């Protein structure tokens, strides 16, 4: 079951820049885009990966009702990297009803409702007129917007499993294509800054005062970022050659432990990685790089280091790329799958900006400085609240 799917194109937008070229340059140079957080005038010290141009690019015309920070970022990602053209080619090739849209988000356009609550009628408590819940706040608004923008009529839904959401959509698409429900799928997703996540993670004591420092002995929490990643997945065709990157497998598990804290021994994380390798029919030794979830929380990084070193040993190169553009939460699975695809295409192991001294109790082979290397196959980890885990295997065909 679940034969490999080709990634025919992908697009990525974070605070590092819009599109693959700017993203690759930042990864190569080890350049972080994290900056002191000015979003929503938060009163506590924090860093964030903000995409400033979202503040001034309203959606217009037939998409005006969808206007919110999340869908603006979706629009920006669709028009970068020739992604919309690739989707259009798939639509013409397979028919619009045969191209699915499976996207993930945790925030959707929640910020729109935050603003509506601040503008309630002081007498009646009513929300301002013109606020469109379905097209902004509701999680499905993202897939609805993308499906409309790409003129698609295949199966669609949004997966919202916190920070594992945009990894799990790759699994959904692989199953849907395997089952013949569609022939190609737009997967990935978008998450954007909002007060709920900033104040919420702060309430949990999980936001670092400075830029996040994954795997550092002095790590103290996350820096929130915003980001989008879109991929077009389809069965391999004559267009896909040895240089193409494929989705080779996925693994999904649950921690069954705690709502906001990972299993300390990384049991769920290990299960997800094992299943992903089994589906890809690869031994751990066949993996050249692991893109860690590595959010820079004290507990999370320790659990993941344990899971990774138990399964892969202490030689497989790994790093968290959260120091580049922050933790893009619901988008992190897709954003980091894009970083992985760039690593494979351009032969590099991304480093870890802001990480100075690796926790001496950790055993995995953590990459601090970006370096060149042949990268054929990678594992990308995404773990979320509620104990939702997903690992993907991406790489060249065997």
């Amino acid at each position, binding site marked *: *079951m*679940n034969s490999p799917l080709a990634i025919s194109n992908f697009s990525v937008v974070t605070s590092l820049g819009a599109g693959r070229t700017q993203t690759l340059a930042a990864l190569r140079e080890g350049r972080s885009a994290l900056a002191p957080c000015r979003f929503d005038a938060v009163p506590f010290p924090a860093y964030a990966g903000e995409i400033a141009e979202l503040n001034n690019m309203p959606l217009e015309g037939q998409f005006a009702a969808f206007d919110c920070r999340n869908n603006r970022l979706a629009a920006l990602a669709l028009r970068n990297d020739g992604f919309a053209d690739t989707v259009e080619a798939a639509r013409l090739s397979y028919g619009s*009803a045969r191209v699915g849209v499976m996207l993930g988000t*945790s925030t959707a356009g929640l910020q729109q*409702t*935050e603003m509506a*609550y*601040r503008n*309630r009628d002081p007498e009646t*408590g*009513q*929300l301002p007129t013109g*606020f469109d*819940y*379905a097209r902004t706040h*509701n*999680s*499905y608004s993202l*897939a*609805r917007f993308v*499906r409309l923008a790409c003129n698609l*009529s295949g*199966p*669609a*839904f*949004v*997966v*919202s*499993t*916190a920070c594992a959401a945009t990894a799990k959509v790759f*699994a*959904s698409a692989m*199953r*849907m294509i*395997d*089952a013949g*429900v569609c022939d190609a799928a737009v997967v990935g997703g978008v998450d954007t800054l909002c007060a*709920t996540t900033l*104040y*919420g*993670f702060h*309430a*949990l*004591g999980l936001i670092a005062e400075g830029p996040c420092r994954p795997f550092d002995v002095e790590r103290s929490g996350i820096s929130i970022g915003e980001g989008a990643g879109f991929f077009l997945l389809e069965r391999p065709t004559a267009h896909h050659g040895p240089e193409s990157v494929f989705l080779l497998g996925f693994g*999904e*598990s*649950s921690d*069954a*432990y705690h*709502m*906001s804290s990972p299993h300390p021994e990384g*049991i769920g994380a290990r*299960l997800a990685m094992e*299943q992903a390798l089994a*589906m890809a029919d690869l031994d751990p030794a066949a993996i050249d790089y692991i893109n860690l979830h590595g959010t820079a929380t004290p507990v999370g990084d320790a659990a993941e280091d344990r899971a990774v070193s138990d399964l892969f040993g202490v030689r497989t190169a790994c790093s968290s790329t959260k120091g580049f553009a922050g933790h893009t939460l619901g988008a992190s699975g897709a954003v980091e799958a894009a970083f992985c695809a760039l690593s494979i295409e351009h032969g590099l192991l991304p480093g870890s900006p802001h990480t100075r001294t690796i926790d001496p109790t950790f055993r995995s082979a953590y990459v601090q400085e970006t370096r060149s290397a042949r990268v054929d196959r990678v594992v990308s980890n995404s773990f*979320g*609240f*509620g*104990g*939702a885990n997903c690992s993907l295997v991406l790489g060249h065909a065997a």
Partner: protein
Amino acid sequence: MIRVYIEGVGLYGPGLDGWVESVPVLLGRREYVATPVRLQPAPLLPANERRRAVETVRLALAVGADAFAASGRDPAATATVFASSGGDGETIHHILSVLASSNRELSPTRFHNSVHNAPAGYWGIATGSRAASSSLCCHDDSFAAGLLEAAVQASSGWQPVLLIAYDVQYPAPLSQVRPIGASFAVGLLLVPEPSGAAFVRLDLDLLPGSQASDFDLPGLEDLRRNTPAARSLPLLVALAKNEAASFSLNYLDDIVLKLSTIPVPNGAPATAGAFGSKAS
């Protein structure tokens, strides 16, 4: 076409106090009275979690536990798909109210309960399940989307999959922009092949079009129209009747999900290791 078999059903809604209790209503043999949802405290949760569990979690765990009752299967080894049109309105209302006030200090528990997959997280903790779990949203069409995803996981992954679809009413002022008729939840335990507990075969097809089949249980029509998870009612009626049926549910503006049910002889011997033969 996707083919699965159903081993168990869970159902709670207004006037629908469990699947077995609800069958006479779904058959039209007992008058439907929309009494408020009556839920036992979440049966699977430890005592401290049980007391403070929010409504979405209590609904989801109740239908999930009931769906397993007839199967004899282990929830801890079963993948899950959760589907909700928007999740926990009470929690999000509380967060948004705090954020709109002068003192923006959120409760950490409220914040982690605000994720769309909160019921999935509590289900995992309650059952000890480390199996795969997804949580979907498709606005009004979340039941159809969840059923499609669960059926594809069961047939493509050759494994049992529990679907839990639920919705709750939102407090004002969210109810002004998102009116939901009632609290409602349905659980369906799907398996990829006939088994001892499977009582019906379910075939699914996606077809272009926007016209779902008419639904002719007048007492329940308001519930079906006003509560996204209750769009499952035509399927639940077919399961209650336990006879062959074919009908379409709305799924997105331009697709319908065609469902066909055929009863299968109950009590066929379960094949030993049936789900180990092609494990995902």
